């Protein structure tokens, strides 16, 4: 899952770096070790970035067609494009489903598992529950999407519909994924929460291990209840992890693709578009690859800006702490 990929925050700077005493070649020799890495990153990452940014200033039908200079037309068109604006509005909901809800729930679950289940009911149970919460994280998202698609089938054959029918006594036949924007977006969000929840749980539980158990025992002797301990000890101690989790999941949210592709294909009526799905769709089915390149380039810029803001904020917080 891409959310677990980018924890590059905080680099350690040791006072006394290891160094192999130099003989002859000096530091230049180390550059040789970059050769394969740099060549690959140049071709696979930087060439596409340059090519798409350039293309975003042209109109191009693809294939052998001529490119036509477009200036800023594509970029200007983005701001008038309802689907584009809609896709970024949906990103706010995706952030709620992939960042805010999992982080908050993850905090509560991690604290519960560590502080109550682990300490009072045994570590075996808490490790087992942690593994269960983490399970959806390792499933391919596409497979998880197909699973949810089956549960949410329209008409009376849908599992979820059958549940509701049993509970209410009436036949429920809601078209969850194709009926309306509300139910379709909610379904996508629930899938995202289901997938994401295990990531903060595991990270936060590992963080809690750092906390001195004496602190909790002292708090217990002072008759602090669970919630007071959570607020006064747990939360401040694992702030760095909360930061890392929200940074990595926010970036994953901005790039989200598979849940929408599998569950709704952007429907009903293009209402559940997210930016990456829109760009992908325009590249494949659109008539102007220049416009598709403008969409993709704009997402790239947004991701970079968000990453830089996050890291700045964190560095400032670190300096305050120091």
């Amino acid at each position: 899952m891409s959310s677990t990929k980018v924890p590059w925050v905080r680099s350690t700077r040791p006072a006394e770096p290891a160094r192999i005493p130099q003989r002859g070649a000096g530091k230049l020799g180390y550059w040789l070790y970059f050769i394969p890495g740099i060549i690959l990153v140049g071709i696979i990452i930087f060439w596409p970035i340059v090519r798409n940014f350039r293309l975003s200033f042209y109109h191009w039908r693809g294939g052998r067609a001529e490119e036509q200079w477009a200036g800023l037309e594509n970029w200007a068109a983005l701001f008038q494009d309802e689907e584009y604006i809609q896709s970024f509005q949906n990103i706010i909901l995706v952030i709620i489903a992939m960042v805010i809800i999992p982080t908050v729930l993850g905090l509560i679950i991690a604290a519960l598992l560590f502080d109550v289940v682990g300490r009072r009911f045994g570590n075996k149970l808490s490790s087992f529950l942690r593994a269960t919460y983490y399970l959806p994280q390792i499933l391919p998202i596409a497979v998880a999407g197909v699973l949810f698609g089956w549960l949410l089938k329209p008409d009376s054959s849908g599992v979820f519909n059958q549940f509701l029918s049993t509970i209410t006594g009436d036949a429920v036949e809601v078209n969850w994924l194709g009926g309306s924007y509300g139910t379709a977006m909610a379904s996508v969000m629930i899938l995202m929460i289901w997938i994401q929840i295990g990531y903060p749980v595991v990270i936060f539980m590992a963080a809690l291990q750092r906390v001195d158990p004496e602190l909790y025992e002292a708090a217990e002797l002072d008759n602090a209840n669970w919630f007071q301990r959570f607020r006064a000890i747990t939360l401040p101690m694992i702030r760095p992890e909360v930061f890392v989790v929200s940074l990595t999941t926010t970036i994953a949210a901005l790039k989200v693709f598979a849940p929408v592709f599998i569950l709704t294909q952007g429907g009903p009526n293009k209402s559940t578009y997210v930016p990456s799905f829109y760009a992908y769709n325009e590249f494949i089915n659109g008539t102007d690859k220049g416009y598709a390149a403008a969409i993709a380039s704009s997402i790239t810029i947004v991701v970079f800006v968000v990453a830089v803001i996050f890291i700045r904020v964190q560095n400032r917080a670190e300096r305050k702490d120091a």
Partner: protein
Amino acid sequence: MTTVPAASATDQTPATGASAGSAPPRTPEKSRRNKSRPRTPTEWILMVLAVLGALVIFFPILLLLLNAFKSPADYATSTPLELPEALDFTGIQTFWEQNNFLRALWNSVFISTMVAVIAVVISVLNSFAIGIGRVRGRTWIVLVFLMANLVPQEMLFDPLFQLYDDLGLLSNSWSVIITFVVIQSAFGTYLLSSLLGTFPKEILEAAAVDGASRWRSLRSIIVPVIRPTLSVLMVFFFIWTWNEFLLPLAFLNTEDSLTVPLVLEQLNGERQTDTTTLIAGTLISIIPTIIFFLIFQRTLTRGITAGAVK
């Protein structure tokens, strides 16, 4: 962070994450005192809540297990929560016959293994120059590599599609392997660079005195020492690549080049697909991941926490 004792900053070693969830050791006297106190009703309620939450998470997979072994007739007449009347393998059989699942499994295993191995090699080479060599502008170089991790895949797919088309690599596993070697080694380079930055220099100096070249030190000293971290990285690269969707979807288009997620996605898209076949296929697609999870569970929990916070 200020209140955290200095030692905690370094407890990044794999050993700590390995048993995340087990409490630090206590003195016998304390644990006796703690155990003697009876569990309060509130604690019981909170425990039950945690178990219920886990059940909710597991529920979709439970439904899958309950229904994958029903015959189409049984599926049509029973509710999803009922046990199957008899164990029926029609769905699984149909899925197996209609799709070349073994081929997809092989493709996924081949792609993910190649990416895991090559990406770790590239990460080691990059981070050797950054962490040990401490070349000029290394912070910037790390950022350059990290771009691979930040860039949205939709930015890459059209140019790379044309590139692989020109090279004749479309619908060839290597298109996906090359791409994900670059994307995964970005994270590997970042993680290993900061790890090697703290590598004990006495060892390397001793080796240099004995006449070891750089390449020799890297191969015979550094790599063996950081091997535990490298194996964690490999497990992660494997599973991340296994789960990838967008770029494989774009690059792999022929029947016998598909990966496991792609086969299932294709089946899901076909209208005439029978529901029991689809459920059986979903279950079968999940099985390799579950087996992998059970084998590497400790490595995985250790890995996600490695490098998260230093």
